[in-house]
């Protein structure tokens, strides 16, 4: 019988990883000034593609890659309408979401009953034996371990490299970058597609490493939670990690309490994860709005304009 905090924290990492991937992806896109509400759709196509390709090829790594590619492809649709056709970002994102939902429900029916060799948990030698820390962080699947490298890597790229500077500049004011001769459009496209790729990877992690199954709409709003996490993390990868794990912990709390025979109102527990996100957004919202890159601020101003 393990302690409740240990269970919840382990569950936080276990359940929060798919959200973290999507949040990292959305961080990149939003840093470039594009909001992709279709992240949920990218996660879904990634989850289906990941599971389906794993079933066909027998390799979950190939499946994960396919999931990323699928997520990126859906994000490409979003990028096209938003960047080339100047469509409203929020509306387009939602449409892309429904597209992803419809496509995966249609093509996914055949995979619900299929089995696939998914990712197995692999205990990191030595590290996984550390009391508490070992169980919380080092007894998961390879895609979870990948995020431990991805978070600092993304932070480094976005804040310390020329490419990162380009992406940040594009998010602030595209004219400035354009004047210097950079291909603004290309940078934005790549940022959005990269965001979709990571979201797709998160979806693949959900289906091949977490739930080990495919079912339609299995992301159940995780993509939207990722977008919220990105907002209150102010697009910072490390803070996004914290936010994703916070949500994962809230998701793990209800079953952990129930399995111990405790009963707090079921519906209160079920809404806890989403309430937690709302509370954090309310507390940090105003501050975050002022800090957002100018390009991003314009997106929200446009949508609230009558």
């Amino acid at each position: 019988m393990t302690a409740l905090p240990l269970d919840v924290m382990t569950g936080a990492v276990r359940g929060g990883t798919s959200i973290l991937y999507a949040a990292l992806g959305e961080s990149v896109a939003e840093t470039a000034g594009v909001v992709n509400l279709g992240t949920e759709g990218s996660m879904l196509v990634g989850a289906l593609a990941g599971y389906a390709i794993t079933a066909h090829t027998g390799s979950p790594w190939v499946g994960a890659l396919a999931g990323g590619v699928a997520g990126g492809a859906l994000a490409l649709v979003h990028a096209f309408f938003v960047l080339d056709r100047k469509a409203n970002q929020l509306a387009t994102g939602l449409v892309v979401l429904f597209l992803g939902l419809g496509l995966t429900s249609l093509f996914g029916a055949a995979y619900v009953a299929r089995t696939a060799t998914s990712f197995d948990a692999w205990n990191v030698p030595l590290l996984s034996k550390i009391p508490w820390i070992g169980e919380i962080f080092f007894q998961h699947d390879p895609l979870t371990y990948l995020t431990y490298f991805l978070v600092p890597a993304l932070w480094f790229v976005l804040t310390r490299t020329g490419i990162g500077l380009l992406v940040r500049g594009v998010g602030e004011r595209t004219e400035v970058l354009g004047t210097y001769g950079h291909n603004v459009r290309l940078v934005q496209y790549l940022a959005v597609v990269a965001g979709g790729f990571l979201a797709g990877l998160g979806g693949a992690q959900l289906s091949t490493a977490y739930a080990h199954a495919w079912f339609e709409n299995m992301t159940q709003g995780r993509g939207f939670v990722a977008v919220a996490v990105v907002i209150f993390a102010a697009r910072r990868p490390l803070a996004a990690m914290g936010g994703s794990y916070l949500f994962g912990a809230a998701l793990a709390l209800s079953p952990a309490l129930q399995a111990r025979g405790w009963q707090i109102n079921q519906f209160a527990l079920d809404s806890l994860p989403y309430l937690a996100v709302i509370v954090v957004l309310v507390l940090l919202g105003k501050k975050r709005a002022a800090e957002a890159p100018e390009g991003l601020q314009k997106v929200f101003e446009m949508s609230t304009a009558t």
Partner: protein
Amino acid sequence: MQRISRWTALVAVLLLALVATACGSNSDSSTTSDGGDAPGKGSEAVGFIFVGPKDDFGYNQAAYQGAMAVKDAFPDLDVLTAENVPETDEAARVLEGMVAKGAKILFATSYAHLDAALKVAAKHPDVAVVQQGNLIKGDIPANAGTYFGTVYEPVFLAGMVAGKQTKTNKLGYVYAYPIPQTIANINAFELGALSVNPKAVTYTVNTSNWCDTGKQEEAAQSLLSQGVDVLTQHQDCTATITKAAERAGVMVVGYHADASSLAPKGWIAGSEWSWADLYEDIVQTALDGKFTGSKYNANFRSGLKDGLNPFVQSKFGSSVSQETKDLVAAAAKDIAGSGSPFKGPVVAQDGTELVAAGTVPDYATIEQKMVVFVKGVIGEIPKT
């Protein structure tokens, strides 16, 4: 200016077409006959609605297979199916659509499809509407009924196997909603385990969803961390929890469908649907015009006693001993005869007596009593 008026004309034509077709289909479905025809008699088609997809490795798949069996048994009948029909008013619309296509026999296969089913039944006295799993309270309309198997009977038997095989004496049950069927299952599972192992307890976790794989995984993990070594579930899609048990090296008891291929080492027992015979009998009864007043024009429950239980035992796992199988066979015989999984004395979690010693409750009484857990079940029923 010309462009605008062309657009206006196009939109106007489209709107007219839309209105015309809508009106057309409305008038079809609103011709309610005056009840002269027996419900379902001579129907050209039979309609089935499912709450989920037909390949969920569980509940809906089994119902769909039943529908296909009806198709084979009645080659002249048009079998209409609709998957992913939500448990809302939408279900009524889908059913109406099937009536418009000539279906006078309708099967609403999910628990909360009842309201929609009754609505449609009220509008069409010549259509026989049967609903799977719920109970019609009060007067039962002449053209409606519910049906279900006494699922808790095979679950009791599977619980016996679980009680025998467990080494930690801790069993785990992941469920969706605290509806009477589910509570009956959990209670029967625990009672079955207790009948062979007085130390067995059942931990419960609910996911508030028939198939949220993320929640299922988390529920399974939380039960496993409590030392549970036999997992079972009442969910529509069963793959996630079955695989989680297999990965953790613990035992699993199946539900809805035979998922032993997913857990070759851990599978010990299970129960699954076999709707074909029951569905066919209902359809035949309705087609012959004998629905009203028949056993299906009621809250029909079929169990081991009348031999038509559509819920049957799955095969045993390889680790189950012959001794255990014999115990189960004896219990099944007893239930089919004068016994019941809920034969008294049955005590509720809080100590009150649910069934007095020596009493054998009938199916209707059992469903009424299934609002509390029995002693040995760990977990509280969420208050609605």
